[in-house]
Every structure is written in C-alpha cells, then in structure tokens.
C-alpha cells in the first residue's frame, strides 16, 4: 500500500488506512533508535529543506533528525535572514527551492493554508509542519502513535483535549486522526476558545474540565497560546489556570491508568503543574521520541509517491 498524495497537508485528507500505514511504518523506525547506529541509507541523495516561518524547537529538530537518520541531506532556511525579509513571496521562495532540486519542503507557517499554496505551485513533496490554526499532521500522528503504543488500540478510548481549542492546529489534527480510528473525543475549554460548530466533526464539547476528565483514558493538554491572545479571550491567566490548569486533584477524576500528553512547549504552572507533567502518567517525553520515528515514516512513504 502507498500514500495517495505527494504531499502531507493534513490528517483530514488521509484515509484511515493511510494513517494506519504511517503508524505501522513508524514502529520499525522506532526500533532503529535502540541500536548504536541509528541511521539507514533509505533517502541517500535526497534533499530535505526546512522552511520555518514560525519559531519551533522540537518540530524542526525532529524533522531534521528524521531526515538525517534516513541519510537525506538537510538544509535549514532561517526566514529571518532570508529573502523573505526582502519581500519575497512564499511561491517564489518555493520555486527557488524547487529549482535547486529540493525533494522535500517542510513548511511551518503562521497562516492556515500556506502549505496548500506551496504544494499547488511546486512539484517537490510538501510536508505541513503546522499551518496557522489549520493542521499539524505529524503532531497528530505522533500523538496517535504514542496512544496506540501505550493503550494497544485507539478504538473506543475516551480522549479529552483540554484548553485553547480555537487556536490549536494540534487539536484539529488530533480530532481528524483519532475520530477516523474510532476514539471518543471530548474537547474542553472556555466557550470563547471553542471553535464554531466543532461538534460537527463528531466530538463532544464541554466547558467544565471535571466533565471532560471523567473516566478519560487519555488527556491531551494544549498550550495556552499567549502569542494569539490579543483579543481578551479570557479574563486572566490566573483564572484560566484555576479553571483548567491540570493538577493532582483534577486528574483523580480520570481513569487510574490515564496517560497525559502535551504537544509542548509547556507553560508549567499554567495549563499543567510540574507534578503532573513529570508524573508516571505523563508520556510527554515519549511523544518527542516518537515524533522522530513518525517523521521518518512520513518522509519514507512520501518518497515512494510520484
């Protein structure tokens, strides 16, 4: 089986089978990490360009490591010192990279749909590393991989996604992927941070965190996005933290073996206390490890699509 599109733009465009293929492929790449030599020659001679218009530590490093472990050559474009600062358009930047025979362009952009614009205009594989508040497909995939690894299956699990759903591309990719694999999702946050008609995607909406946590198998805690917070979406960080901040008390409502995910970077003490993020239920560091395996799987599988 192969992926159908040359690009990975979002989980809403993938079938259940395609998602499973990526997750299964990542298992063997993860096994590689236990060896002393973590590199395979699969993508030798291929060029991977990382084009990040937004800040990132883990996604960028994770993609770079994934490419390098597949023996591809990687190029990092620092947008703040590039021609973008001279007013070059996204399409022109993309075409320049295409002319240099970049096989993959991994793009992060603050605007929803930017990877689509790029993918439409160039023949290189385009991977969405997060676009605006639209999708972050590899984060969705690594969350699913982590959940599946810990729980054995995704079907039938009760998964609570807590926090700023409105501004979260991670939440959207999680919703697309997890519902396709049969999970039961509850999204929870203040009404001002719940997107319009999100329940049409098949999720439940609740405002009280206690309702969302009840009997949860998985809790995915989203970061409060201060950078998108100009519009007075809630009165204060203090009030937010009191209502939604994940602590020892609240977590008791969930199942005993609940696992806690967070896409990072964390605001410790705001949406999550350190005692939770560093607890035995937390799989936050494993998410990071799995992210590399998932991105290797994505690069490997897309390379097979022409």
């Amino acid at each position: 089986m192969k992926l159908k599109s040359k690009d990975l733009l979002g989980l809403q465009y993938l079938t259940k089978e395609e998602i499973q293929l990526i997750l299964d492929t990542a298992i063997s790449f993860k096994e590689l990490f236990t060896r002393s030599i973590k590199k395979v020659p699969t993508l030798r001679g291929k060029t991977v360009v990382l084009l990040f218009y937004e800040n990132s530590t883990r996604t960028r490093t994770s993609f770079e490591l994934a490419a390098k472990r597949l023996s591809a050559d990687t190029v990092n474009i620092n947008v703040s010192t590039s021609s973008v600062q001279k007013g070059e358009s996204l399409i022109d930047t993309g075409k320049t990279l295409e002319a240099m025979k970049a096989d993959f362009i991994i793009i992060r952009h603050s605007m929803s749909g930017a990877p689509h614009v790029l993918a439409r205009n160039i023949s290189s594989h385009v991977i969405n590393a997060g676009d605006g508040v639209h999708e972050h497909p590899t984060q969705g995939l690594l969350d699913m991989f982590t959940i599946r690894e810990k729980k054995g299956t995704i079907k039938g699990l009760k998964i609570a996604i807590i926090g700023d759903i409105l501004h979260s591309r991670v939440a959207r990719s999680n919703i697309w992927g997890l519902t396709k694999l049969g999970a039961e999702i509850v999204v929870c946050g203040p009404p001002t941070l719940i997107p319009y008609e999100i329940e049409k995607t098949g999720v439940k909406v609740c405002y009280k965190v206690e309702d969302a946590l009840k009997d949860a198998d998985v809790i995915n805690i989203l970061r409060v996005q201060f950078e998108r917070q100009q519009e007075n979406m809630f009165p204060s960080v203090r009030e937010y933290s009191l209502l939604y901040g994940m602590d020892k008390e609240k977590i008791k409502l969930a199942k005993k073996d609940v696992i806690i995910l967070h896409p990072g970077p964390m605001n410790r003490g705001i949406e999550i206390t350190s005692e939770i993020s560093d607890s035995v239920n937390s799989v936050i560091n494993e998410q990071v490890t799995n992210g590399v395996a998932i991105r290797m799987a994505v690069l490997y599988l897309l390379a097979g699509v022409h």
Partner: protein
Amino acid sequence: MKLLIKNGHVIDPENKIDSEYDILISDDKIISVSKRINIKKNIKIIDAKGFIVIPGIIDIHTHLREPGHEEEETIYSGTRAALAGGITSVFCMANTHPVIDNQTAVEFILLKAKNEGVVNIFPVGAVTKGQEGKELAEIGELKKAGVIAISDDGNPIMNSLIARRAFEYAKMFNLVVISHCEDLNLSKDGVMNEGYISTLLGLKGIPKESEEIMVSRDIILAKLTKGLLHITHVSTMNSVELIRRAKKEGINITCDTCPHYFTLTNEEVRNFNTNTKVNPPLRTKQDVEAIIEGLRDGTIDCISSDHAPHTEEEKNKEYNLAPFGIIGLETLLPLTITQLVKKNKISLLNVVSKITSNPAKIFNLSKRGSLKIGNIADITIVDINKTKKITDFVSKSKNSPFIGMELSGFPVYTIVSGKCKKL
C-alpha cells in the same frame, strides 16, 4: 445614423413589454418601438430573431480602480469589460487612491470616462473625507460635480452619529447613501464566513451577524432620518428578512445583491482558492436560497457585480494575505440567467428589472433603464441559449471563482447611446 433592431423579443419591465417588437434608433435616441418597422434605406439593421432585447444593463456597484490601482483595472479596460458583459452603465465606487471625496476627483473620473470609456460611467462619491468615517465630505459639491450617489463602500461608517448625519444631510440633495454593512469589530481579521468550514480550515471567520447588526442599525437610522438608504451586496438570510420587514413598515430602503451570493457557498473556500475571498464572504446554502427568494419577492431590488479586480500577484498567495474581491462585469448577466432564469427560480421579466429599470428608478437615472420613446438608446441584446465555458476576460484582472464554469445567456450586441458593438 439610424439603427433598426428587428424581430427581437423585447423585455422592458418599466413599460410591461414582454413580446416581439422592432426598435428604431436615431443617433443616440429611441424613436420608435412598434410591432413592425420597415425601413430599408440608409439604415443599419440588426436581426435579433431568437434573441431578447432589453434596456442596457446598469451595474450599480463596480470598482474601476482608477486613479491609484491602474495595474488592476482602468476606466479604459473596465468599461470594455462592461461592454463585453452587456453592461451599458456602471457606477464606480469611491475607494480609489486618492478617494473620490472632492469635486476635482469627480471631474477626473468624468473626463477620463469621456475620453477613454466605452460605457456610461456614474461616479459614486465618498460619504466622509478619505472614507475615514470621521468627517462628512463636501456632499453638496460632490453632487454638483456629478456623483450619482454617495458611499464609503469598503470602509463602513462605524460611528452611528456620523452615519445619522450623512443620511440627514444627503437628503436635501436627494442623494442615496449606499451602505456596505459590516461591524468591523465583529469581523476583525476574518477572511471567510464563520461556520463549520472556517473551523475546519483554521481561517478566521466573519460572522453573518457583523453584516446583520449594521443592516439593523442602518434601517433604524433610515427610519429616524427619513434619508435614502441603499444597502449593497446583501449576503445573509437575516439581512434579507430585516430588509423585508423594514420595507413592510414603509421605511425608505432599497438593496442589491451580487451573483456570487446566489451562486456560491463557503464550501468553495475548502481548497484555499483565494478567488473565493470576497467581502462580505460567501455564505451558506441556506443564505443562497434566502437571497434568491428575496430577489423573487422583490425584497432585493437590484443585482450588482461588485466587480473588484485584483492582479494575479496579489491573489496567488496565502489566503490571509490575499485581498478581498472578485471580478464580475463579464459574468453578471450569464450568472443571472443561468442561476435564476434557467433554473426556473425567477421570471426573465423580473430579473431584467433588477439590472435595468430598478437601478434607474432608485438612483434617478433619467432616460435610461427602459425602452421608452425618447430615451437614450442604451440596449443589450442577449442570446439566452448561448452556452460558454468561462475561460478568459476583457478585464485587466482574472480573479474570478467562476473560471471553468459553463454558463448560459451571453450578450450578442451592446448598444451604448446608439453606438452598437457586436460581441
């Protein structure tokens, strides 16, 4: 020079004509409309058998971009696009650079129109200086210079006090205030209709309420001031309902919508095609149906194009960065015929009134909008069965969401002041 249009099916809503007539034109005037006119010498004859003959189309909402954005459109190119679309008169909005908020600017447009235009141009003046919504422009001077109406289209007047004064003051010149209804606080940073699709795409939504709140406010102010209010590009079900009720109440209010609001929905945005980015945004199926019903029952008086040209460079980028607007001069007529007449939603006589007699009446265009003897010979001859795929445009810009669509009902002759252009 005499021109005779023979054997055409004449539709003239103003004079309630809907049958075969011949029309005789001398120079720039209609001199006879009669069952059979037989003149053979010294005359140009158009055989309009199988075609419909209607008063020249009046498009009350266009952006010709001159002065300021000649890379998008000019008076030269825009009037040629209008001609190609069967449109004989266009109102051009004031949001040029500089803004049409003074006599000199109006004179510039009229001079350019005279020298380079091929259809009639009626400039719309600004309501406030620089369209900033702060101080009234010299509305009396604008009227004297020749504006047909006033509007801050594109920059709605948020301050209700200024809006009130504009309605009151314009009254003494019998000028209609054309209002673009949008609460800018509610619509802030929005790029498409707020709804399930905007949630899926992660694009900031513009709620329908941002339009409806301002429609309500303007209706209330029109009632208070007894001013002349025309609401342009109505796009939502509730706006139609608000206007319907206001009209029933006897408030002096008229409105228009555009072909994209009775043709497309926000589903079109799904692939981030920026040619679907328009303000107000494409709404939902429910709204489309309500717009059609509003046109049918007479709540909506006119159909305008809101022709808003933008270059490929401006449009081919991230959805958030692309400017609002789609072109419409060349698709106004075929979309109206295809979507409303061919689908049996509204009679031909009724839709023709929306683009001819109604605009002429609302804006007091004398001797236009009907085929009365003595009127100016602005006439459009249409082949309603001609079917064509939309591929290219006369307009300088190509930002149309209708590219690739197969439409019916194209003009075959556009006659402006007796001058005939075969298409």
